[in-house]
């Protein structure tokens, strides 16, 4: 039987990006955890004053625009200080691949920089957990299939802002490890195949016919929403805090099987035809999938290695994705 914690021992957690599917699930999960005293949910929407679930007054929602430095300061030294927040779960990143510009960069990178700087001298904040992405890793033919945390990052200047910002945010957090009094945990999660998470693959699978590179069928690893939230919650309570870990999902399968399991038709086409085809689709239908950003992982296998997460957090993927089509 677990010992009931005193009120002062309960964790007080702030979740940025709380109105996203991951953020909302994380808030629910934290509120269901009796080790959590209070959850401060931060989102960009003013209408979400009440999160759509019961919380016994253990939840506070506030609207802040994290792309503005002034708002970050007000948030940390205002409501976060008043509520004695100890842990920041930072999952707020622009999810759209097509979104570009300085405001997007400010949300993705500058907000994190401000949070790390300000939290260093904050009276109550002790830990920051950043939800990063395996998209920060370089994928190429001469690199290992199984990606460990020391795998090279995608520093290519030609990468889209969506990737560059994630790499910059990840590196920013990593360079402050040990230098800031803050305990920093970076979770490089596999792609979460769920609506509203900014999943490129989900957008790719939205078409009834999915075109993939002829002659290639790389292995992919995908994470379910439930496992992503479990990993974040584990990081919130982990003893080992200043660390970088990969969070793989329970599904490792080739791209062709992924298309098949999603109930779509797979049509292989020469690689050179795919970029203009998907660019035209993006322009005509306003979709998000960018072949250019996914070209390498559509050719070469890349599977995150979760052994460090298992060792440090006890994390093992438990919830496979609910595929619409059963395994044949």
């Amino acid at each position, binding site marked *: 039987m677990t010992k009931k914690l005193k009120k002062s021992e309960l964790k007080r957690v702030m979740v940025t990006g709380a109105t996203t599917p991951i953020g909302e699930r994380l808030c629910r999960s934290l509120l269901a955890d009796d080790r959590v005293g209070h959850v401060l949910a931060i989102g960009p929407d003013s209408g979400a004053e009440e999160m759509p679930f019961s919380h016994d007054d253990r939840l506070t929602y506030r609207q802040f625009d994290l792309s503005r430095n002034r708002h970050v300061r007000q948030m940390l030294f205002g409501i976060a200080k008043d509520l004695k927040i100890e842990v920041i779960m930072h999952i707020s990143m622009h999810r759209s691949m097509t979104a570009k510009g300085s405001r997007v960069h400010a949300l993705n990178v500058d907000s994190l920089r401000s949070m790390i700087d300000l939290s260093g001298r904050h009276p109550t904040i002790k830990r920051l957990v950043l939800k990063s992405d395996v998209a920060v890793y370089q994928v190429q033919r001469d690199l290992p299939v199984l990606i460990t945390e020391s795998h090279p990052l995608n520093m290519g200047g030609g990468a889209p802002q969506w990737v560059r910002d994630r790499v910059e945010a990840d590196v920013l957090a990593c360079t402050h490890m040990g230098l800031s009094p803050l305990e920093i945990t970076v979770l490089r999660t596999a792609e979460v195949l769920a609506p509203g998470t900014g999943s490129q693959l989900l957008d790719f699978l939205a078409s009834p016919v999915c075109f993939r590179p002829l002659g*290639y069928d790389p292995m992919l690893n995908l994470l379910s929403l439930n496992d992503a939230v479990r990993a974040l919650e584990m990081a919130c309570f982990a003893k080992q805090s200043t660390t970088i870990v990969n969070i793989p999902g329970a599904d490792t399968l080739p791209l062709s099987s992924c298309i098949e399991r999603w109930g779509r038709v797979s049509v292989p086409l020469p690689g050179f035809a795919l970029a203009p085809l998907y660019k035209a689709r993006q322009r005509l239908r306003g979709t998000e999938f960018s072949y250019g950003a996914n070209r390498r992982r559509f050719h070469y296998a890349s599977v995150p290695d979760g052994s460090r997460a298992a060792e440090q957090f006890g994390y093992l993927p438990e919830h496979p994705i609910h595929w619409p089509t059963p395994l044949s």
Partner: protein
Amino acid sequence: MLLTPKIARRLAKTLLPTEVMDWAGSLEISDNGHGFDPFGLHPSFAALGLGLCWKLHHDYFRVLSYGVENIPTESGAIIAANHSGTIPTDAMMLWADVLIQTRRIPRPIADHFVPSLPWLGVLFARSGMVGGSRGNAKALLSVDELLMIFPEGVGGIGKNSKLAYQLQKWHLGHTELAIRHSVPIVPTAIIGPEEQMPQIGQINSIGKLFGLPYMPIPLTPLPLPVRYHIHYGEPIPVHLKYKPEDADNPDVVREAAEDVRRSVELLIKNGLSTRKNIFE
């Protein structure tokens, strides 16, 4: 047409004798939930790979193998062999032979360009091949897989006939891996492929166009039906002789690699002395 595991299994059934398909159809792998391992290996494709090699192994190259008891049946190990023959049929025959003899799927470590070859890269990966990076080898050895490495690399397979049975530059990676991960090395000599497809030259510029390290100009359009003799030597217990941290000592690694090279050389010498002619 998409080659699915189901189709691969059906094709394997048509290519393999029933008694072989009985065990080849139920090979064990570390399945990640969808029938594949993280590197893309699938048992049905491994069975298809064996099916494609079967006729070549049994009827065309008529492979004879010696010392199969030297291949570990369960634990991790590295099979280090000489490489020759202009096209990599020696790797295919060694892969098939180890699978037939031990019913373990060996994991060939291929040069970087192989996984990037369309279709072939996928078929090879489904049959167990992985790209030649330290990370891949480490991951496989940590789960006791049987690795297949050709320390000469492209230098061995691409050499001309004048250099037949002379080992080329012997790379050290296999020894470093074996010491670091405490596994033995099985030195192996493949006799026969040197004579299968003599080269009269190479056009490297055309090879590069297709992502290949070289484009051979062979004397014969197809490999000759030479007989392959595969000699598995006694395992070299580098894991007992050295500590894992010795893998960081270049002198130790060089010395151990030289032991392996000498063993392969001796196996080649003995194999050649007992062979009557290239077809027997």
